[in-house]
């Protein structure tokens, strides 16, 4: 219809214009008459006026610049002008149609763009150890705000701050005393609001921890619940427990994650309450709709503050079987009395119960209410370390019909038993193979609950691990300090005085203060001491010294994040596993339509030489080292038949190919792509359906 309208325009308009201007219409009529009369004698000649005016003796009138209407109208209707005019007019109309159609076509063919949580790495901050701003030896929110430049310096877009709720546990805030407040050691709510504003001002996003499973026993709800006050009576899981001979006999054999029975007798209520973790962390009763509503209100509160997403921790523990049957022991012969450790039971009745995912979906639903504003999608991650059951983990991705977490955090690279090219391949492959189609992967090499890379697998592998993390498809998650290769502190330095509850001591050595510079306390605090001792290697391992030195772990990290954001194949391209042996892990990243491909050759064993051309025959014989863990090698040309890697060396090779690996028969089933898109060189844009 647009076209029809456009066509009818000129005629209609000229009519209207004519009607409006009566004086002109008269003139026009008159002109028409005149041209009509004169045209009889002139027409045969006028067409040549333009071509050869002198030849025509009788020309009475010549067009000239600035000619008035009377003169103009005699000549402008000549075929040479009229036809050109018509052609030009329709060309312009057609041109605008083409432009509009082209726009619509491009929009229709555009792939869904990567959302902010897909576009860049996530930087996980343990706030107590990041930066102290008030000299008390504990890191705080203001400290994070002071150091935001470090995060932008790393080309990172998303900050993940682990739990900072008001909590009596000096350690992690894993049992919140008040979900609506910030622990005083981290600062005030105003500090938090300022931090959020500062983060958003820098164009960054922030996600926070929320552990809905339990609260602290100091929480108001628990205090009201043990007094059986109103609706709070059923906020926790209470059971009668028999008392015999002065000792409490729990309702069943369930044990807590930290060991011993997960039932604790409460003197006030004279009943046992259930706790999956420590006895100071009673489990909320998620079978109670009021409790679910409380959690949704908490979600709304923080989203209203401007938080861009949540990482929901320990969600698999949310529900327990109502029948309270004993869980089957791993070792059948073992006596019920002796079962004290968490690993001695199969947790069929206390984890991942039916209905769990409905609760998480209701959280997602609440978050979606806050996602409507453009550019304000709220991210949801689930943080559950399912070491054995990858399928249970994948459930958190939701289905194509029901949205759940954007991704469950992937700990495959942390849970690896031993390090080799093959084990890396298995860790990567198990995620990629099991991930539901159309979902987005993610990777982490460090976390607050695992020893730091340098300590876990060795200092010499820190660079190659970062290279792996930042070249795999999906969102990389970096635990603070991994970008400079921090190490655990010696565990004897972590004394009881630092914590109230025992089991978390084990995870403290990887939470030592961030090493900013070579000054006292590594620049973490201006105060005399820090809550955990600073690692003694801070004089050589710190941000300041490494940023002045391009061959450093930090320098490589930055180069990798920069490469990742500037190269489309690394951003959203195919990933094909090419080769792995006990030493090296080799994969390519490529994008349809782009002839530039990247091949990562990562050494997780010992010095080795790989013949890549034998694996991929179409590989060009030479490739350029785009980046290397040995910085000086960058830019060198290597022979793809003979690629030598040192222990812990990683190479990002760049080459041009017309036959990408993912199209090859031999690599069917070894390639994965999330958010598939193809590149059009001519238009410099991405499109789908290719």
């Amino acid at each position, binding site marked *: 219809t647009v076209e029809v309208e456009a066509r009818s325009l000129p005629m209609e308009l000229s009519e209207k214009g004519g009607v409006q201007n009566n004086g002109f219409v008269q*003139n026009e009529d*008159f002109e028409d008459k005149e041209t009509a009369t004169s045209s009889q004698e002139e027409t045969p000649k006028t067409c040549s006026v333009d071509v050869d005016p002198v030849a025509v003796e009788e020309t009475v009138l010549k067009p000239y*610049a600035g000619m008035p209407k009377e003169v103009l109208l005699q000549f402008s209707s000549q075929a040479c002008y009229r036809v050109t005019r018509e052609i030009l007019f329709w060309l312009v109309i057609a041109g*605008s149609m083409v432009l509009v159609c082209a726009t619509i076509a491009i*929009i229709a063919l555009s792939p869904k763009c990567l959302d902010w949580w897909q576009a860049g790495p996530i930087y996980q901050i343990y706030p107590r150890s990041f930066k102290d701003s008030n000299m008390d030896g504990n890191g705080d929110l203001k400290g994070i705000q002071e150091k935001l430049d470090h995060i932008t310096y790393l080309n990172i877009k998303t900050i993940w701050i682990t739990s900072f709720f008001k909590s009596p546990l000096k350690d992690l805030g894993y049992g919140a005393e008040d979900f609506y407040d910030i622990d005083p050691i981290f600062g005030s709510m105003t500090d938090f609001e300022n931090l959020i504003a500062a983060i958003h001002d820098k164009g960054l996003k922030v996600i926070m921890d929320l552990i809905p499973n339990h609260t602290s026993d100091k929480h108001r709800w628990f205090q009201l619940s043990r007094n059986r006050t109103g609706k709070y009576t059923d906020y926790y899981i209470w059971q009668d427990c028999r008392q015999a001979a002065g000792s409490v006999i729990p309702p069943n054999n369930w044990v807590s994650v930290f060991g011993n029975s997960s039932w604790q007798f409460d003197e006030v209520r004279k009943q046992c309450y259930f706790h999956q973790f420590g006895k100071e962390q009673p489990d909320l009763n998620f079978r109670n709709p009021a409790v679910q509503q409380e959690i949704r209100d908490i979600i709304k509160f923080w989203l209203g503050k401007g938080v861009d997403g949540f990482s929901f921790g320990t969600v698999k523990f949310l529900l327990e079987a109502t029948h309270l049957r004993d869980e089957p022991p791993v070792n059948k012969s073992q006596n019920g009395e002796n079962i004290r450790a968490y690993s001695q039971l199969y947790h069929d009745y206390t984890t991942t119960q039916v209905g769990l995912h409905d609760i998480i979906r209701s959280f997602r639903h609440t978050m979606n209410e806050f996602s409507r504003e*453009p550019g304000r999608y709220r991210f949801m991650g689930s943080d559950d370390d399912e070491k054995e059951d990858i399928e249970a983990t994948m459930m958190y991705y939701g289905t194509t019909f029901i949205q759940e977490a954007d991704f469950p955090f992937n700990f495959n690279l942390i849970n690896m038993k031993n390090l080799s090219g093959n084990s890396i391949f298995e860790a990567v492959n198990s995620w990629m193979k099991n991930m539901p189609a159309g979902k987005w992967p993610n990777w982490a090499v460090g976390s607050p609950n695992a020893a730091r890379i340098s300590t876990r697998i060795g200092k010499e592998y820190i660079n190659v691990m970062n290279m792996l993390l930042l070249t795999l498809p999906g969102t990389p998650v970096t635990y603070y300090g991994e970008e400079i290769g921090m190490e655990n502190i010696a565990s004897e330095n972590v004394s009881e005085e630092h914590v109230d509850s025992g089991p978390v001591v084990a995870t403290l050595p990887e939470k030592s203060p961030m090493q900013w510079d070579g000054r006292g306390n590594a620049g973490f605090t201006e105060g005399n001491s820090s809550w955990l001792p600073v690692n003694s290697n801070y004089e050589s391992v710190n941000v300041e010294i490494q940023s002045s030195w391009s061959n450093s772990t930090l320098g490589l990290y930055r180069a990798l994040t920069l490469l990742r954001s500037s190269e489309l194949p690394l951003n959203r391209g195919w990933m094909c596993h090419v080769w792995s042996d006990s030493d090296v892990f080799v994969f390519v990243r490529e994008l349809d339509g782009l002839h530039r491909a990247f091949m990562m050759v990562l050494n997780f064993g010992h010095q080795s030489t790989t013949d890549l051309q034998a694996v991929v025959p179409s590989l060009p014989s030479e490739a350029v080292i785009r980046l290397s863990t040995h910085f000086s090698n960058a830019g060198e040309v290597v022979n793809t038949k003979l690629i030598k890697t040192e222990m812990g060396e990683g190479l990002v090779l760049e080459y041009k190919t017309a036959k990408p690996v993912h199209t090859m028969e031999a690599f069917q089933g070894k390639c994965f792509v999330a958010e598939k898109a193809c590149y059009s060189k001519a238009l410099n844009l991405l499109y789908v359906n290719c």
Partner: protein
Amino acid sequence: MGEENLKRRKGEDKGREDRQSIQSHEPQTMNLQKQANLFLFPFGPCVGLISGICMIVGTIIGSGIFVSPKSVLANVEAVGPCLTIWAACGVLATLGALCFAELGTMITKSGGEYPYLMEAFGPIPAFLFSWTSLLVTKPSSFAIICLSFAEYASAPFYPGCDPPQAVIKCLAAAAIVVITIVNSLSVKLGSYLQNFLTAAKMIIVAVIIVSGIVLLAQGKTDNFKDSFKGSKISVSSISLAFYNGLWAYDGWNQLNYITEELKNPYRNLPLSIIIGIPLVTVCYVLINVSYFTVMTSTELLQSQAVAVTFGDRVLYPASWIVPLFVVFSTLGSANGTCFTAGRLVYVAGREGHVLKILSYISVKHLTPAPAIIFYGIIAIIYIIPGDIDSLINYFSFAVWIFYGLTVLALIVMRFTRKELKRPIKVPIIIPVIVTLVSILLVLAPIISAPELAYLYCTLFILSGLIVYALFVHLKFSWAQKISKPITMHLQMLLEVVPEEEVTE
């Protein structure tokens, strides 16, 4: 021989005309005026008070207030001073417009600053003004408005990221071409489009204001408590806030572009200004109040598109109307820019400062088609390169140079041209204030962020002198030799004639 023939012919024409229509010279001029009115003022032949006010309100309110009202808040950081500055900017714009009203009624010529500069300082500053605005400021603002239209229109299809450049540029080019076609084909169609888009703009303004008032009545006044607390007030922050705020009022001199067509200009020009600009001020302040009812100042600063955020919070599930109407509003601004821009070329062409053909009028459609097409082409050229926004931003200070010069012209003429009749005479203090403010606004961005680019802009403006010397002052014959046949052929191709010819 040809010349003679021509003269004879023309004589004949005159004779015949006389015979045909009993009215001769006098009505002929009236026809011209009617014709000029037609394209110079699209809101119909009666350019009364109401249409004057509509024109002011319609052109000043662009898309800025919906998208980035935060520039003022960002500088003062508190609600109270922010609203105060918005109101103060309105007062300042009114003062500026009053100066222009004096000039407009003293020198009743269309073309905005051009005739005043001509009258006060002679042809060179006037030429520099048209040189800069013809080649840079006007077409680039046309291009930029079309680009931002394209951005808003395509943004809903790309949630979470920026639309690809190809989409934005295609859509912007399409908008330029369509607006150019519409405006060169028919004044009426152009004005219908303008009226529709202005109506859309006013609807969304009304929706935002009314829902804001409703929210206020419901007691959502939290953000107005202690509204001066935490404000950051210093000379530099206030002058930068003014600088940004006044941009939202840009367009207050629009009425001076059409002085010739105003009905009873001595009454209507100042009245339109005195009613129109405060009306805009009230709208702006109320829109800001509405925003603050649902957003804290931090949220407002962080929002990518403030009106869209407002719509999401207040109008859900009908929140889609906000982006739709913002798109309409942007398109309206683009159409309006094309419209006034056309007039400027036309006037400069009339004075012989640009190629004459640009001032010609289409015989069939009675539109200044060459001027509009010229703008369309320049604007399309501007959208082709990668990133023009930054360059154009540097040129924005040039606009204030010419505003300042124009108001200075007013002061100068109080002394040099005492004999001129001044139906409106503003107190001399007003132009003095406006001149001082202009100087401040020219210097503020340069001092706060000195860049070499400002020097290039100044050099570009001064390079107009060379062009002036070569083509206007010396009138090289070879230039004429080239321009004449081009003019002739283009005239025949586009069917355009000089306006003056009819009057002879």
